[in-house]
């Protein structure tokens, strides 16, 4: 299928890895940006351990690329700049004792039923 046929499709990226495993945080965001660059509608859903990278002050501690200024915070910002939507699981916030005001700007909170609706309505789900 030609890439032109993919434009407008919806991709849901589910990220379950967080600050304890830096090497598992980079690629999902990179794929999300790639899909956005290809004119797809993209959302990253953070749940389980993935939630903790969205706590203010945490992502900037995670260096992703040696000898560069790219850290997890800059990756999250670049992802949002690419018009990728970031959402976090309500129940996972409690898992990490996080309150809505602890979240970095630009992230919305959704509940479990919403993720089921989203998964059913997206063209493809990528699970990490």
């Amino acid at each position, binding site marked *: 299928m*030609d*890439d*032109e046929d993919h434009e407008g499709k919806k991709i849901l990226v589910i990220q379950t890895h967080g600050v304890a495993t830096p090497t598992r945080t980079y690629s999902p965001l*990179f794929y999300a*940006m*790639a899909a956005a*660059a*290809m*004119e797809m509608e993209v959302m990253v859903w953070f749940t389980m351990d993935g939630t903790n990278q969205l706590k203010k002050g945490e992502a900037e501690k995670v260096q992703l*690329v040696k000898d*560069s200024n*790219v850290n997890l915070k800059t990756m999250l910002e670049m992802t949002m700049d*690419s018009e990728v939507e970031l959402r976090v699981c309500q129940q996972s916030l409690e898992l990490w004792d996080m309150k809505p005001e602890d979240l970095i700007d630009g992230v919305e909170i959704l509940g479990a039923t919403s993720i089921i609706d989203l998964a059913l309505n997206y063209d493809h789900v990528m699970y990490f």
Partner: protein
Amino acid sequence: MAHEKVNGCVILKNLHYNVENNTWVRVIDDSTVVIGMTDIAQNLAGPLLHAKTKKVGTVRKQGKPIATVESGKYVGPVKAPVAGEITKINDALSGDAGMINRSPYNSGWIVEMKADNLADELSNMVSGDDAVAAYKEKIERDNIQACEQIEGADTYD
């Protein structure tokens, strides 16, 4: 002088620029243009590993992607500076995306397009000394790091 360097980044004065999207346009005739990434854009992206252009015949609105490029640290679209139809693509890029890094204004061109309304769209771009001034401002505002030397930069004059 046909070109100027701002923070080491080459700006050719005879091209038209969409500064926001960091693309250049070379006018071939009253509707045909060649399009590419600026020296600043390739420098920001870093050494490119892949460049995937849209196909010949693709009709694009202004601002929609004509290609996607990716390096180890960046992936993003090259946005059409004009509305119209892609009439040629640079086939060489599929095997050597680094050509965009080495020669962003010549052999690293991205696509040729037949523009729907070129005169109007050129009026929204900058060229010559206005382009140099616009990029000076952008480089300072965005704190863009110095560009590395590209091929042929000393021969553009």
